[in-house]
């Protein structure tokens, strides 16, 4: 009997120990580090209370990173929510060879961000292919990653480009559960292609829409690798995002205190979003998805 009671804990022991060492302990450590000043001596930092938070909130670099991240998110999320729907509708058709198209369009999702960043850096180069095409149609060249007014938007394009097919697959999975009869009925009622999608497709995608919004927001707030590869936060800090700021403070300036404080601020923002996400999932765990009962959305 005794042995029986211990069994669950035995299975949980190793995983929980690892989580303790590599998640919970570091989290507590991060809280502690955010209260320390490493500038005098990195091995015996001084306790300075909430001074790092004060430094953080009065730092123009932090606010620049914060604003850049906000612009980035506001720009990327609507594109991630809407554009993949068009792709999903195009790829949902029963056409010959459609699987081949799906695989090819999915390629940017599979390829790592660093490779994608390099490929686009080459396209965006001053003497790169995009500017060559601009020459060809008689437009002036653009210094995509060099002009501080443009660089952030140029990076956003890459992020959207890489994410499109990912969100497309989420929509596609949902679309495939829309019964054909609904489209047939819409056509009989005299709906054109656009009306058909407006009245049948969109209502079916509504739960996915919200999910994509939340996931792409969380992803946008954590953007780092694409920035590191393409612009290193430049020019003039115009592409410095929150995570890039944390990285720079921690591993280039060795200012671990302010970096941890910034990390915790990021965590609080993400926590709020995650809670929304969890509430959302609980709602849809309880309720059957609209698709399952034949789409009463019409």
């Amino acid at each position, binding site marked *: 009997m005794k042995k029986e009671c211990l069994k669950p804990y035995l299975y*949980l022991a190793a995983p929980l120990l690892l989580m303790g060492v590599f998640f919970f302990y570091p989290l507590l450590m991060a809280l502690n580090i955010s209260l320390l000043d490493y500038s005098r001596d990195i091995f015996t930092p001084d306790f300075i209370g909430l001074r790092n938070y004060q430094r953080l909130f009065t730092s123009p670099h932090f606010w620049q990173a914060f604003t850049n991240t906000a612009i980035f998110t506001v720009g990327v999320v609507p594109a991630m929510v809407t554009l993949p729907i068009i792709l999903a509708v195009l790829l949902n058709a029963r056409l010959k060879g459609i699987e081949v198209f799906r695989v090819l369009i999915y390629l940017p999702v599979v390829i*790592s961000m660093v490779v994608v960043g390099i490929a686009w850096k080459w396209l965006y180069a001053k003497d790169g292919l995009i500017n060559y095409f601009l020459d060809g149609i008689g437009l002036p060249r653009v210094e995509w990653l060099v002009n501080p007014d443009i660089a952030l938007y140029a990076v956003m394009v890459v992020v959207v*480009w890489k994410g499109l097919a990912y969100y497309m697959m989420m929509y596609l999975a949902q679309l495939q559960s829309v019964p054909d009869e609904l489209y047939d009925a819409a056509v009989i009622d005299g709906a054109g292609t656009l009306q058909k999608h407006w009245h049948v497709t969109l209502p079916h995608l509504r739960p996915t829409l919200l*999910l994509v919004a939340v*996931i792409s927001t969380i992803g946008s707030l954590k953007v780092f690798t694409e920035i590191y590869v393409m612009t290193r936060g430049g020019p003039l800090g115009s592409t410095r995002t929150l995570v890039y700021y944390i990285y720079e403070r921690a591993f280039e300036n060795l200012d671990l205190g302010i970096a941890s404080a910034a990390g*915790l601020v990021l*965590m609080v923002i993400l926590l709020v979003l*995650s809670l929304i996400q969890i509430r959302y999932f609980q709602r849809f765990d309880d309720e059957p998805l609209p698709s399952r009962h034949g789409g009463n959305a019409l």
Partner: protein
Amino acid sequence: MKKALHYLALILLVVISVGPFLWLLSTALKSPEENIFATGTLSLLPQKPTLDNFTTVWNQVSIGSYMINSIVVAAITVFLNLIFSVLAAYPLARMRFRGRQAFFVAILTTMMIPFQVIMIPLYLIMLKFGLTDASSLADFPPINAWFGLAIPFAISGFGIFFVRQALVGLPKELEESAVLDGCNSFQILTRVLVPLIYPTLATLAVFTFMASWGEFLWPSIILSEEQHFTLPVGLVYLQGAFSANWKLIAAGTVLSMLPIIAFFLLLQRYFVSGSLAGSVKG
């Protein structure tokens, strides 16, 4: 007519999706004399294709080591993640015990901790344990660094959650009949339950593999020796090493893509489910 337009739209999408990679490939295949810049006339296809750029890159940077490091680290991460996920998910899904709900909630909270918050302490911990490449300087294979790279991702709240969801759905009678056959709880797990959730485990494996393969932030923090780089870190290094020599940069980048493309074409179905699995993680 409508069908033709549909195909046209699809082809356009493929060009947009694959084009940037093809341009890298085309650049990598161009011979030394050929122009690759938009200064003169630029041709989309290489005039005299050559593999010289690939051999040059292969000889000048340790791209072979980067591949080995990336593959080994991904393998260790996937292997450990599957084991720990199954071990933790089993009691959470199939047993009743005191504190079950509390453990589950604690595990789920780890999904909300962004890696960017714990990476600084984690770096200090790894230094203490000697799991950075500072402790295996210039060695190859860099066993310490491999484990240092894998360990933060060797266990994940998401993996546990994902396996638990699959195990919860299995009928209760499975254990009852296994007990009658004289199985102990570990045998029930390994012989009865695990074989029933292979598709879930395969999905989790591919998800974990992709995350590990593409990871840049953590390896860039703990690695400093060129021999120990994983592909993403190595590619960034290579970009600096060849500065503006885009033929060589492109060649190195194309080489680095080969393993993942092969893997993707072999396991397409799991790649799609594996990447979508992450949608509950965010």
